[in-house]
């Protein structure tokens, strides 16, 4: 049917310029409707969230006791665990021993409890999904530098200590950590240091003997043979420690200095930026890297068949004031549908046998008083050359901690990191 007959035909009636403009305007007019609709659908976090000026930074010098709101109290004592509970633990991939879940299900079989793991790639992603309700979970696995945001954002609930008797197995310092005095909201999960790993068959010098071992990342002889961790706080922390700055600096000059040093590092050694060092060192993709102690331990199991882990070395400063130590936590999400059973799960994870098995599975140590370097080396769990990957309480207490940065400062750090990763 020809268009000239007056009948509409989708094939024969081409869209002329006037019609196109008309339809475009109609579409444009519809956009505000869509915008209004989306506005109505979204909960506006900008209005709900407290202002950044009210932000409290916890630090060893400024320990914080987070308030417990009457609208978000801990559960009561002596409650009966929920029947048919499904405990969802929101954590990193391979960061929790599946055997721990099985043993928990077996222990509380009469309540028919089931456990499952949901994983995230980064805590940013995790917090986003928790806030938006994109995930229904009970226990979350953050690092301590997110504590303030989670409490202020009303994302977690206080713990009832009467359900968590295994806290007695944990280093005493964690019953009153600076980031959560009186352990109101958290128990520790893993502890780790950040140091340097190298292969003695590829690196001839003793890196630990250098005046400042962090210099290796700027040493051109190691060009394209290194990697740093793809974590802006940790990698930029390395830059700060090398320069003798605070690893939580808010000083604009030092933040600019970190940018400058990262650029120089890129020019001198062009390091890889990733978190696959636990594979890259064993397979000789890199000869030396910045590494978390847990990943250094994991490298042993990634060594190719027939190759000895004796070539691996891990350096962490003998003076821990110039080294980074961190810990992750277990917290109970406010959204939890099974808070009693979730408390029992947290308690289960602090059991010595469960914690030790979890350490062997993940490579990341849980701060249990019975886990010591001498124990692990003597029973052959850890090669003698990697004894330094085991974190001791005395050393941990003296190390530098990555602290929660005020949002405006954090944004500056992230901007510097983006520039570094752009490879300019």
């Amino acid at each position, binding site marked *: 049917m020809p268009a000239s007959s007056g009948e509409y035909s989708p094939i024969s009636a081409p869209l002329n310029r006037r019609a196109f403009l008309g339809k475009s305007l109609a579409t444009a007019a519809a956009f505000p409707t869509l915008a209004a609709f989306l506005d109505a659908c979204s909960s506006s*976090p*900008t209005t709900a969230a407290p202002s950044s000026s009210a932000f409290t930074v916890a630090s060893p010098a400024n320990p914080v006791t987070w308030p417990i709101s009457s609208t978000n109290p801990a559960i009561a004592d002596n409650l009966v665990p929920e029947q048919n509970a499904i405990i969802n633990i929101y954590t990193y991939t391979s960061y929790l021993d599946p055997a721990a879940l099985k043993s928990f299900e077996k222990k509380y079989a009469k309540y028919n409890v089931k456990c499952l793991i949901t994983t995230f790639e980064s805590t*940013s992603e995790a917090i986003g999904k928790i806030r938006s309700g994109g995930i229904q979970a009970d226990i979350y696995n953050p690092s301590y530098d997110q504590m303030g945001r989670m409490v202020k954002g009303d994302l977690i609930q206080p713990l009832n200590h009467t359900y968590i008797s295994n806290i007695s197995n944990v280093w005493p310092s964690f019953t009153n950590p600076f980031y959560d005095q009186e352990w109101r909201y958290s128990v520790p999960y893993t502890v780790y240091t950040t140091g340097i790993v190298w292969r003695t068959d590829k690196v001839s010098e003793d890196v630990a003997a250098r005046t400042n071992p962090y210099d290796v990342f700027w040493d051109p002889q190691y060009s*394209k043979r290194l990697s740093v961790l793809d974590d802006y706080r940790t990698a930029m922390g390395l830059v700060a420690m090398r320069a003798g700055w605070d690893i939580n600096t808010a000083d604009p000059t030092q933040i600019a200095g970190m940018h400058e040093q990262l650029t120089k590092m890129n020019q001198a050694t062009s390091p890889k930026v990733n978190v696959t060092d636990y594979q890259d060192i064993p397979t000789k993709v890199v000869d030396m890297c910045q590494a978390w102690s847990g990943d250094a331990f994991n490298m042993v199991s990634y060594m190719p068949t027939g190759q000895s882990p004796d070539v691996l070395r891990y350096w962490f400063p003998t003076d821990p004031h110039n080294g980074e130590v961190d810990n992750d936590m277990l917290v109970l999400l406010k959204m939890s549908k099974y808070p009693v059973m979730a408390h029992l799960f947290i308690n289960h994870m602090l059991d010595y046998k469960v914690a030790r098995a979890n350490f062997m599975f993940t490579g990341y140590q849980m701060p249990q008083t019975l886990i010591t370097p001498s124990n692990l080396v003597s029973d052959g769990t850890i090669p003698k050359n990697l004894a330094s990957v085991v974190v001791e309480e005395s050393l941990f207490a003296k190390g530098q901690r990555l602290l929660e940065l005020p949002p405006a400062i954090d944004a500056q750090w*992230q*901007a510097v990191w983006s520039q570094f990763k752009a*490879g300019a």
Partner: protein
Amino acid sequence: MRRRRFLWVALATPGVLWLLLLFVFPFYVVLSLAFGTLDPLFLSPVPIWNPMHWIPDQFTYVLSHLAGAAGFYGPAILRTFAYVFIASVGCLLIAYPVAYYVSRFGGKRKGMLLVLLIAPFWISYMMRMLAWVNLLQIDGWINKVLSFGGIFNVHIAWLDGRPSTVILGLIYGYIPYMILPLYAGLDRIENSLLEAARDLGASRWSTFRRVTLPMSKSAVVASLLLVTLPMVGDYFTNDLLSASPSTAMFGNLINTAIEADSQVGKGAALLIIMFVVLLAPMLYYVRMTEKAEGGAV
């Protein structure tokens, strides 16, 4: 007539809905993020849905850092175009003869050859790249082959962050997308036209140059578009085969931005810029095919 009109509307509805749900709406979300703000506590992006309230700060930041002294995005973008150009040419140089051979000389084995060409699609892109990571390791098979069974001492660190490895990955990853449309285009050329050229005295080379090549031009452009557009946004190949900032591409800029809470809006702005840049070759292709259709009529 009314029934016929209803039929056309019904046929168009799924496509329109598809476009609205999976293109228009997501694109509007990206715009709202690029012109949005940040949550003051979590630093997470807060989209502003109403265009009347859009804040241009993040877009301005990205634009002001594309070039010049503060232009840290610039080198990665230029690098991307260089890598994509080389990889696209590499793909074409490999894919065209392959597609030509299958269409002209495949004979009874055409089907089997096509299946073999499609086979890489059965394995995910990530798995194929991970396979290359193994092959390219210092002790990997590539070095073993190059050492000719140990005669030469070859210890090339292919994975140390070199551009050639990234380009190799791009060529390998995207070449199937080029072979198939090229094959389809070449296979459509009538044999009678080629025979006519030969009958009129043209040599094999002249026939190829003056008949086959011009007639496959639209297939070449389509296949180039099919590989270059995703290559420009690719970040995974570089992440796996290099992971060095010195080989960061446009896609890596966006990915890095998205991973850092406070930078998500900037990632959205970069994405819009990429979209605008890629619009030009797409429009060229549309115009070219329209002209070709017009010429055919």
